[in-house]
Every structure is written in structure tokens, then in C-alpha cells.
């Protein structure tokens, strides 16, 4: 067993101070590794350099580009590349952990610039795209430098095998399960209540599916109420709701972690009607950890997270009637609902950071077998040694 403290370099491809799943994952992982006694440095694009934690190194301001159907805040170009090289040269890292090395950002640059033990984590799950097949041959020699690849879900792994013909080990995203374990049920959220957490304005989060299902649900469960938590402008959404049913919706805005735990412990059912674009479904894992019984759309990420319905009910994605049917069944069958919630809570423990970070760390160990350190690739090239070129910023 490796017990010595490691010097770990993590590269986050997206703007550190913009919201996103990859950023949250990198932050939690870095903080967990630091708490475990390792020396961690995170390289990330940063917009506001005054408000970053001490372990983050800025690689410059991110550029917003449309990528894969959304706006991605990434960073590349000669200046960024120079910073990446400098960070690697000065870091003296035992291992590099690159997130999303297959998108055009600093992770890819770091993978290009470095040799030695490197681990890559692939988050995205995308449909088959011609563009990516065209990029494949360019990425291949870079990606194959990684000594190990991690995919956060079966969906992400399938994307990787399809697009880059390489396999990956599946290690799920981590959650802090104990933060949600001991939520206190609050009377105002109890009863025949449905919960939803997320940026509800985004169509892919699927709140409209739930809104459309409510007329049917309220026919069978007249006292049903819906609580929506998460940041966003509620006016637009309220307008789309049938006036007779508006009173059943309560928008809570952004809620604290403690409130989230209480919320999940109180509601009867947690609804995840996402229509796509989800690779892992971190919020679903959190809902399970909080003991909520989950009804989720059958998109691949949720299907594998819930083990095909074993730990939560699945309905046909984008079908309001199917959702309504499942909800009514569960509201009428308390035994089944409670049993599902209990099974889910147990299942969610495997997503706890303690378990997940352990798995990630054993991948690190496997990559460290060669006993090398991370170096700049150019130092290896014959001509660099011949000319005596040394671009390292040893200052």
C-alpha cells in the first residue's frame, strides 16, 4: 500500500468560477485529497483571480465557445500552453489527473505537453457525432499517453469506446453522502409532495414534463403539491402552468445544503424528469443519499445509476402520462415507496467520496508503478537535448 503523500496535479478544463458538474467534481476531489494529506495543485481557467482557493492556479481567462450544444468556457492558445508547460515544469508532480482531455482546453494541452504517470477522467456522454470521428485521429496519439482512463458512467464509457476506440474504468462521481444522511423531515414539505431540484429554466432538466403530468396526478391525488428548488426565473415557468394548478407549485429558490438534506428527507417523491445531456446524474445520487424515493426518466445515465429501476422508479423520458402513472402508483403504495427509498439510500453509499476517492486513488497507484515523475515531453526529444533548449520557466 502506498501511504506516502503524493504531489498531485489536477487540470480542470472549464472556468473555475462558472457553475458546472466537472468543476464541482474537481473541487470536491481536490479537497478530499488535501484532507487525506496529499499536496494538490489544480490548474484551471479563472475569470476572477482574487477569489480562488489557495490550491488553484489560474491558467488565464476562459473563452466562451459553443461546443457540443452548449456554451463551454474553455481555454487554449499559445499563452495558455506556455502556462500549462510552466505549471508542469515547476510542479514536480508525481501524477497528473486530467479532466475531459478530449475537449479543446488546457487538459488536452497538458496531456500533449507532459509525459509520465497521467490519469484522464471523461465526464461527457454524447451521441455519435461525425465531427468527433473526424477529430479522432488527431486526439488518438495524445489520449493514448494517459496511463489510465476513467469514465464517470457507463454512458461516458460508451461514448469513449465509440469515438476514440479506447476503454475506460468506470468510477462514479462522488457525493458527500453523510451531508444528506441525517436530514430532519419538515412538516411543511411532508404529505403528498413531489420535489425537484435544479436549474429549472433549462429545458433539458425537464420541469415541463412534470408540469404537464400534474393535471393527471392531481385527479388521483387531489392534495398533491410540488416543490421546486434551484436558481432561476420562476415567472416564465409559472406562466406555462395551468392557472388552476399554479397554487400547487412552490418555488423555493436556491436552498442551503442543510435545507437540501431536510427537503430530501421530507418529500414523498423526488422527480428527475431530465430529457438528456446528463452523464452521471449527481443530483439523483444526492437525492438517494437523502433517503428520497426517486422517479426518474429512463435516460441512460439514470438507468445505470438506478440499476434499471432497482433503486428508483423509471419512466419513459419526455412522457408526462408515463410519469403521472408511476407517481400515482407510488403515492398509493406507501410500502413500496418506503422500501424503494430505503434501498436507494443504501445504494447511494457507494457514491460517497470515501469510496470513490479510494477507487480513484487505486488507479493512481497503478499508474505510479513505473516510479517516474511527470516531466515535459519535449525534454525527451533528441533534438531538444541536442540544441540544449530549455524552455522551462525555472524562476
Amino acid at each position, binding site marked *: 500500500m502506498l501511504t506516502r503523500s503524493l504531489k498531485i496535479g489536477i487540470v480542470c478544463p472549464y472556468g473555475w468560477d462558472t457553475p458546472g458538474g466537472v468543476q464541482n467534481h474537481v473541487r470536491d476531489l481536490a479537497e478530499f485529497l488535501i484532507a487525506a494529506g496529499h499536496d494538490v495543485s489544480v490548474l484551471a481557467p479563472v475569470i476572477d483571480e482574487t477569489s480562488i482557493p489557495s490550491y488553484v492556479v489560474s491558467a488565464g481567462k476562459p473563452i466562451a465557445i459553443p461546443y457540443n450544444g452548449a456554451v463551454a468556457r474553455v481555454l487554449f492558445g499559445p499563452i495558455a500552453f506556455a502556462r500549462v508547460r510552466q505549471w508542469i515544469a515547476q510542479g514536480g508532480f508525481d501524477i497528473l489527473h486530467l479532466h475531459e482531455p478530449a475537449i479543446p482546453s488546457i487538459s488536452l494541452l497538458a496531456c500533449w505537453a507532459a509525459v509520465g504517470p497521467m490519469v484522464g477522467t471523461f465526464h461527457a456522454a454524447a451521441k455519435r457525432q461525425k465531427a468527433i470521428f473526424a477529430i479522432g485521429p488527431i486526439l488518438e*496519439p495524445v489520449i*493514448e499517453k494517459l496511463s489510465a482512463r476513467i469514465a464517470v458512467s457507463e454512458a461516458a464509457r460508451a461514448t469513449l469506446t465509440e469515438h476514440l476506440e*479506447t476503454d475506460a*474504468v468506470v468510477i462514479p462521481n462522488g457525493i458527500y453522502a453523510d451531508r444528506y444522511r441525517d436530514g430532519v423531515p419538515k412538516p411543511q414539505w411532508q404529505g403528498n409532495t413531489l420535489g425537484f431540484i435544479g436549474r429549472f429554466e433549462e429545458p433539458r432538466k425537464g420541469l415541463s414534463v412534470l408540469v404537464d403530468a400534474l393535471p393527471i396526478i392531481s385527479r388521483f391525488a387531489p392534495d398533491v403539491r410540488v416543490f421546486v428548488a434551484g436558481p432561476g426565473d420562476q415567472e416564465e415557468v409559472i406562466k406555462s402552468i395551468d392557472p388552476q394548478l399554479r397554487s400547487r407549485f412552490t418555488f423555493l429558490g436556491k436552498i442551503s445544503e442543510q435545507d437540501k438534506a431536510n427537503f430530501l428527507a421530507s418529500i414523498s417523491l423526488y422527480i428527475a424528469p431530465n430529457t438528456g445531456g446528463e452523464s452521471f446524474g449527481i443530483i439523483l445520487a444526492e437525492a438517494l443519499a437523502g433517503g428520497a424515493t426517486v422517479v426518474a426518466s429512463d435516460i441512460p445515465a439514470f438507468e445505470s445509476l438506478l440499476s434499471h429501476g432497482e433503486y428508483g422508479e423509471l419512466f419513459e423520458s419526455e412522457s408526462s402520462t408515463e410519469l403521472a402513472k408511476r407517481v400515482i402508483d407510488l403515492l398509493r403504495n406507501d410500502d413500496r415507496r418506503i422500501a424503494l427509498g430505503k434501498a436507494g439510500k443504501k445504494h447511494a453509499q457507494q457514491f460517497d467520496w470515501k469510496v470513490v476517492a479510494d477507487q480513484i486513488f487505486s488507479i493512481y497507484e*497503478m499508474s505510479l508503478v*513505473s516510479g517516474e515523475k511527470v516531466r515535459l515531453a519535449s525534454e525527451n526529444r533528441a533534438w531538444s537535448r541536442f540544441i540544449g533548449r530549455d524552455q522551462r520557466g525555472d524562476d
Partner: protein
Amino acid sequence: MKTSVFVIVFMLIFIWYLTFLATRLDRLHHRVETSWANLDGLLQRRAAVALEISRSEIADPASAMLLTAAAYQAREANIENRSVAESGLSGALGLLLADGQSSQRPAEVVLLRELSQLTDKVRIAIALHVDAVTRTHLVRRKLIVRIFRLAGTAPLPITYEFESDVL
């Protein structure tokens, strides 16, 4: 004049591409060696744990015999026969543990837990190694690599056909 400049530039790019490919191959061979060293180490540890189990109270005499033989075979096999031998050991361990012998003694619980942790790691190590080997084979099959003998004297990595269901 113009064409000769063109030819020189082309030659330079071509030579750069050759060194690029050679570096890439070198790196891949290195990756195969690392992943093999990792897998080999884990398999040796697994064989050791298997031997310990065979001498513990968990195993009856018959399975102990079977397990000991399988573990020795796995340890002594050369690289070509290794995957067959290791599959044999997996099978022997599987037979023993499938009987649902849930031991209560702390020493044996520890042994079994160590085995299951090792098994998880072996599974990952196999995936990593297989990926490295396939990649290397893919690049070595390229025509240009074969014509210019870019792989040099490095032996062709051996595909490790371990069953994915180790236990």
C-alpha cells in the same frame, strides 16, 4: 530550384513525422511494460493470498489441494501461459468461495476481504493492460511503422486473454 526546396521541406516534415511516430511507439511500449508490471504484481499477491487461504480453515482438504496447485501454476507460468494459469486460479477460488462459506473468524474475514479488494484491482489492471496492448498493436500494424521498422527490436506485446469475470 523551387521544386528542390519543396522536396527538402517535404523530407523534413516526413522525418519529423517518423520521429513523432517512433516516440509515440516508444511511449506505448513503455505503457505496456508499466501496466504489465502492475498487473503482474497484483497477480503475484493474489496467488499468495490464495495459498494462505488454502492453508486456512476456509478450505477443506480437497479444495486446498486444488487451490495450492492452481496458485503454484499461476506463479510459475511464463508470460504466454500466464492468462490460462491465472484463469485456472480464478476458477479454483470461485469454486471455493461460491459454496457460500461465510467465515466468522476475524483472521479469515481479513483474508477474504483482502482477496476481494485484490480482485477489484486485478480487474482494473487487466482492463488497463489490455487497452495498452491493443493500442500498441494498432500502431504497430501501420504500414509506415513496418516499412521503417520504427518498433526496432521491441518484442510484440502479448495479448493477455484473461476472462473479464475474475471471480
